[in-house]
């Protein structure tokens, strides 16, 4: 299990994360949703082991991440950060093979090639293998990075594996958004645990087993989609008016936003300064 236990991250007087706990089991898909600045990416970095929390601990198999040798950790979990950049000319295949670094000897072997190819097919970029990264579009680049993190987790070694995704649908068109999330979903069938920061609540509902709602550094709610998704939550956390459709035929709810749903910014005090406003009834 990959878990964060009572994590706080403090920068100056601000608590970016305040006593947050989150955990994902092998084969489970956990979505993290929340407004900008809620601390989602910070939580992901803590779970990735690239950020040491000021309070609490993050654990993989009950062992703190900082106690894991970097290379062992990198065979067990892969991380897609929000905007990985690359200003140099590598081909897509070379880039995906960099994702194989934790497994490589001095040169990529057959297993690495197979992993790279499978991952590139999953992410829909196999046909781009020879292309220079610099000539790819934003969406194509994002998919190549997704292929890179998928290939990092292709292994027959024992031990559960985890995939951490920070807004994996960035820059992707509608079809490729679903391709990317389906690829992640398929990883769960192989026992990989997924933690994904998602912007679209309907993506979270459709693909995740559980949803963790972060608001201003704190856990607002966590649970199955049907428990977490409510008009009250959408209003209090995202400050939008939304309707939650629950059809008897569908097991999952569907969120529909009302037009012009974002409350006017004049009504919202700067976050953290005054919490009174968000408990007031919404206009209309």
């Amino acid at each position, binding site marked *: 299990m990959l878990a964060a236990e009572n994590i706080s991250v403090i920068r100056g007087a601000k608590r970016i994360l305040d006593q947050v706990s989150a955990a994902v089991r092998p084969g489970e898909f956990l979505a993290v949703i929340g407004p900008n600045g809620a601390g989602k990416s910070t939580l992901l970095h803590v779970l990735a082991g690239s950020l040491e929390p000021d309070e609490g601990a993050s654990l993989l198999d009950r062992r703190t991440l900082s106690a894991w040798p970097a290379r062992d950790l990198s065979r067990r979990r892969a991380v897609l950060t929000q905007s990985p950049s690359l200003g140099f000319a590598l081909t897509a295949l070379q880039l995906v093979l960099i994702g194989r670094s934790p497994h490589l000897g001095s040169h990529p072997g057959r297993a690495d090639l197979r992993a*790279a190819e499978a991952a590139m097919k999953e992410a829909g970029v196999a046909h781009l293998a*020879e292309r220079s990264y610099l000539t790819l579009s934003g969406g194509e680049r994002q998919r190549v990075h997704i292929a890179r993190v998928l290939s990092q987790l292709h292994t027959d070694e024992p031990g559960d594996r985890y995939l951490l995704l920070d807004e994996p649908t960035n820059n992707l068109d509608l079809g490729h958004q679903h391709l990317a999330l389906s690829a992640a979903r398929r990883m769960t069938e192989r026992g990989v645990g997924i933690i994904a920061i998602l912007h679209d609540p309907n993506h979270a509902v459709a693909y995740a087993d559980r949803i963790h709602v972060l608001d201003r550094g704190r856990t607002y709610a966590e649970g199955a989609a049907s428990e977490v998704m409510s008009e009250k939550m959408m209003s209090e956390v995202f400050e939008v008016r939304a309707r939650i459709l629950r059809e008897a035929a569908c097991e999952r709810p569907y969120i529909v936003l009302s037009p012009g749903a974002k409350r006017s910014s004049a009504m919202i005090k700067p976050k953290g300064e005054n919490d009174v406003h968000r408990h007031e009834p919404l206009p209309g």
Partner: protein
Amino acid sequence: MESTAAFAVLLHRQVQKTVLAIVIAALALAVICLVTIHAGAIQIPPGTALGLLAEQLGLASVDEGMRSLRTILIDIRLPRVALGILTGAGLAVAGVTLQGLFRNPLADPGLVGVSTGAATAAAAFIVLGWPLAEYLSAPVLRHALPVAAFAGGLLTTIVIYMVATREGRTDVATLLLAGVAINAMAGACIGLLVFLSAESELRDLNFWMLGSLNGITWERLVFAGPLILAATIALMRFARMLNALLLGEVEARHLGFDVERSKRCMILLVALTVGAIVALTGAIGFVGLVVPHLVRLMMGADHRALYPVSALLGACLVLLADLFARIIVVPAELPIGIVTSVLGGPFFLWLLLRQKAQGAF
């Protein structure tokens, strides 16, 4: 299965391209070596040179008439060729490393302060060190200058590194800016020393500022050569790590690399390489900047290809520039730094303009 084969072909093609580039660059280097040995105030034909070498190794004997050339070949031309190869390869490899580390194609070995630090120490030694002459014997004094330069270079790099490091993490952007600041200060120091210097000292100072392969002996090369070679080879082992670093430091850490430790190692190795080179040759500009840049344009950014090809091409470039510096104003010599900058500057501009035309900015 079938398409894995297609991927294997792609990968194989990349390896082939690298090997081909290495072979071509190595052949070019061999030809340039022969030409460099041949050319000069006294010419030594390649056949004679090979004969003399064979004799030196006890494999053959040559005519008495050629023996007069032996001193020129063995004691002057050959150490110079060896130094040229080490200098070019070392500067290019240091350039590849820093450009990868800073993720900036315009980074140059001079940026971590080692060149100017060494030049400042050398200048201080030349201008202010004369009281030492009374206490030190001549052979010690001869080695004291490069040692002072080497120490100055290393010290400057360590200072810059410490400025940019907090709680065990080194911020490369701060490192770069600290380098700019320290370089400016060192430049002012050198200016002041030039102002204070006597006429005869000015000539020595000039050598340090512009660089030259002149006056190298086996005796000196025995100390610095192995150091440059070892540090250069050690740097080339960071190729895969630098590939991962292209994605950013956090990504490289996620891929299981110990980024901080490697950064420390790489900066130290660059300082050792460039410090030893500068101690022997003075500051030779542009090689560490232009060569990696050019090779990246031809080969792409994979450091496993970038390192060996840059090393060979750097060696070629320095030998050619030295050849040019030696023969253009025979029997005098131009400082090699003038040649590399005169050739390197416009070439670099052309590269930039070409990139602009391709919209690659």
